[in-house]
């Protein structure tokens, strides 16, 4: 056959698998073998799965690299593979109409890939692939050439701050653990990623699990730990599978276990599939889970770095934080610090979702503005609608309106705007989103996920939820906005852990920026975004209705009456306001107000 080098990379993250990634890969492999191309990692020719490359809305993404020349295809289905194989790989003519277009370029050009640099490039299930990309070189250096103090000094100079949300400087945390004397120390990777709308950690764990393990090795060396846990949410099935495989490979190759790199030091890392609760992302609660108890946070009399798991010094770092460590060690602390702002170094991965054109994972240097992220990388709002707000930091974060879009993204500026960095969820809302309903949605999550230990959080959030619920049902009282503000402020100041302190954020930030919308719900009993069901009424516009009967067919409540080819009517008593008729009507004959 041909003697050119050929590499086919097929995205195999969760998003891509659901779009048929595994079938696409299989199709390439089958065709490869039918043409007599031997594929495998060691050969010059290979097909391989790679981690998520971020642009999930255009899955399945396929890279075909012929003699070093890379062409990216988007939206590939298994039945499209034979044509790519025939025209591009055999005849050398790329299939231009399927090549990723301008949006793809725009999406990637504004990004700086540090943590995600290997995600989407290497096969996450092959240790050799990670090693070939320079993997485990920095941990070798850490165990054989550097002293723990030198490692910690480097991390401090890099200005790396915790990517889990609170932004505590990682180097300082490590130093506390280093300086505390103990017979046993632990390093824990927090991969709980509780925030709905954030999936950066998942992609790193799925796409580049060895970087996390290497980060943990370096951390263990720095603080003197010989035991580690990777704490990962059990619903991340693919991440659990790939991490487990990565750990097995490390043990087989002697990268973990006894006497690492002949240094005389041991390290044992175990996978801990978490039983699933939002609060487990909180460090003290997470430790309780590993100890086999209910995940209830405890008052922080001591730092966990000094007294954590089983009362021993414990470093709990977020998966993204740890994955940054090998990069800092290999390219230098100054390089990393130079990427960010004065107070926080490096990049941050955001999960850009919601009503933007290009949804997916974006990695940007800290200090970029929100406008650049949403309008340049994200391509603006989808379906020609207008921007309303962006929600950062998950259900305990806050919403930011248009006027704050030129603020730069770093820990301090976001706090000023009334939100938090969180774990990097960035959900964009358009004009069709009701802010009262959204706040209620967040509180529905937080009131259910409160661990129940302290009263302000357990009862306070529930009361706030009830107030929001009555506002969305048209039963709001005039003083409800002030009441929400008062309650929220109290919960914020009197809760035990970070969860309770931030849980009122969505309500307080939306009241701050969208007070009018609350007022309209209460005074006029109307929902301007047409979302709150109880404030809406559905009717049929008689002039537009052709009597085709589609709405009648889909109505689950049998609320639509009418004879064929005559205008229909909606029975207000029976209508459950599900909106099925609007989706079904082709003539725009359903009116909501």
């Amino acid at each position, binding site marked *: 056959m041909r003697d050119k080098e050929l590499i086919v990379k097929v995205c195999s993250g*969760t998003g891509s698998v659901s779009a048929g990634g595994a079938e696409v890969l299989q199709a390439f492999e089958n065709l490869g073998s039918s043409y007599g191309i031997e594929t495998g990692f060691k050969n010059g020719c290979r097909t391989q799965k790679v981690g998520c490359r971020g642009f999930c809305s255009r899955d399945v993404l396929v890279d075909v690299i012929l003699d070093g020349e890379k062409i990216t295809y988007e939206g590939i289905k298994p039945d499209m593979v034979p044509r790519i194989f025939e025209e591009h790989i055999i005849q050398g003519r790329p299939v231009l109409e399927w090549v990723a277009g301008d949006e793809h370029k725009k999406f990637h050009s504004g990004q700086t890939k540090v943590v995600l640099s290997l995600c989407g490039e290497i096969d996450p299930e092959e240790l050799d692939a990670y090693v070939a990309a320079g993997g485990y070189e920095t941990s070798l250096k850490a165990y054989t050439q550097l002293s723990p103090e030198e490692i910690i000094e480097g991390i401090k100079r890099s200005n790396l701050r915790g990517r889990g949300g609170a932004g505590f400087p990682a180097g300082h945390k490590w130093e506390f653990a280093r300086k505390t004397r103990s017979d046993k120390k632990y390093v824990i990777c927090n991969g709980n990623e509780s*925030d*709905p709308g954030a999936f950066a950690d998942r992609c790193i764990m799925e796409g580049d699990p060895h970087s996390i393990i290497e980060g943990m090795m370096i951390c263990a060396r720095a603080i003197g730990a010989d035991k580690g846990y990777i704490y990962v949410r059990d619903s991340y099935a693919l991440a659990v599978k790939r991490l487990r495989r990565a750990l097995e490979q490390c043990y087989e190759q002697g990268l973990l276990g006894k006497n690492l790199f002949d240094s005389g030091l041991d390290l044992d890392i175990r996978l801990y599939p978490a039983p699933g609760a939002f609060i487990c992302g909180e460090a003290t609660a997470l430790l309780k889970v590993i100890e*086999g108890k*209910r995940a209830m946070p405890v008052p922080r009399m001591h730092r966990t770095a000094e007294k954590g798991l089983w009362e021993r010094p414990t470093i709990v770092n977020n998966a993204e934080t740890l994955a940054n460590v090998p990069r800092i060690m290999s390219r230098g602390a100054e390089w990393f610090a130079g990427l960010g702002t004065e107070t926080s170094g490096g990049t941050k991965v955001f999960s850009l*979702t919601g009503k933007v054109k290009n949804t997916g994972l974006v990695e940007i240097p800290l200090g970029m503005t929100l406008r650049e992220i949403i309008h340049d990388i994200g391509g603006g709002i989808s379906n020609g609608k207008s921007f309303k707000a962006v929600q950062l930091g998950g259900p305990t974060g806050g919403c930011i309106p248009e006027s704050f879009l030129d603020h730069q993204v770093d820990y301090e500026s976001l706090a000023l705007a009334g939100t938090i960095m969180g774990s990097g969820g960035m*959900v964009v809302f358009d004009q069709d989103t009701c802010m009262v309903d959204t706040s209620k949605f967040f509180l529905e999550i937080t009131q259910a996920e409160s661990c129940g230990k302290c009263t302000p959080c357990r009862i306070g959030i529930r009361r706030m939820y009830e107030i929001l619920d009555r506002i969305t049902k048209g039963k709001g009282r005039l003083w409800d906005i002030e009441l929400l503000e008062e309650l929220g402020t109290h919960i914020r100041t009197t809760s035990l852990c970070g969860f309770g302190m931030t849980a009122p954020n969505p309500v307080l930030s939306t009241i701050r920026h969208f007070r009018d919308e609350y007022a309209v719900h209460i005074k006029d009993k109307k929902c301007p975004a047409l979302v709150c069901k109880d404030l809406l009424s559905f009717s049929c516009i008689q002039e537009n209705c052709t009597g085709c009967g589609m709405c009648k067919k889909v109505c689950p409540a049998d609320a639509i009456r009418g004879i064929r080819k005559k205008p229909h009517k909606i029975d207000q008593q029976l209508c459950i306001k599900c*909106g099925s008729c609007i989706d079904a009507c082709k003539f725009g004959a359903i009116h909501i107000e």
Partner: protein
Amino acid sequence: MNECLDKIIDNYLENEGNVLTILQDIEKYYGYISEDAVCRIARELDIHPSRFFGIASFYSQFHLKPRGKNIITICRGTPCHIKGSEKILGRMRMELDVSRDEETTEDQLFTLEEVNCVGACGISPVVAINGQVHGEMDINKMMREISKLRADN
């Protein structure tokens, strides 16, 4: 059953006495936390059953009732919410005739549950059917999947 319970107890002793591992194993072997299994293990290890149920009721991983043959998990994360997951959930509850508290259908064919996020927000709204993630779902697609599962039975 005794063989399973022995394995569970061995694993517990290996794991430095972590009660959570027992519950995870029971869930794995039986598909839910059966009262019978918990009581027998509790007797064996001389730990009060309330300790087990205290932990089991805290985490979403554990189910206290038997679950259906097909598990439909509707993602209720923020991106899915603003793209209409509530509508899908409401319609599915009607279709399968299950209430908010009772997640499993009477014929034990379906369990309808919500999850805070499956982390596939780029392709929202997302529904996982028997662990398989389906992106960009709508009511029509859902109805087709349900009838497929019904036909398979």
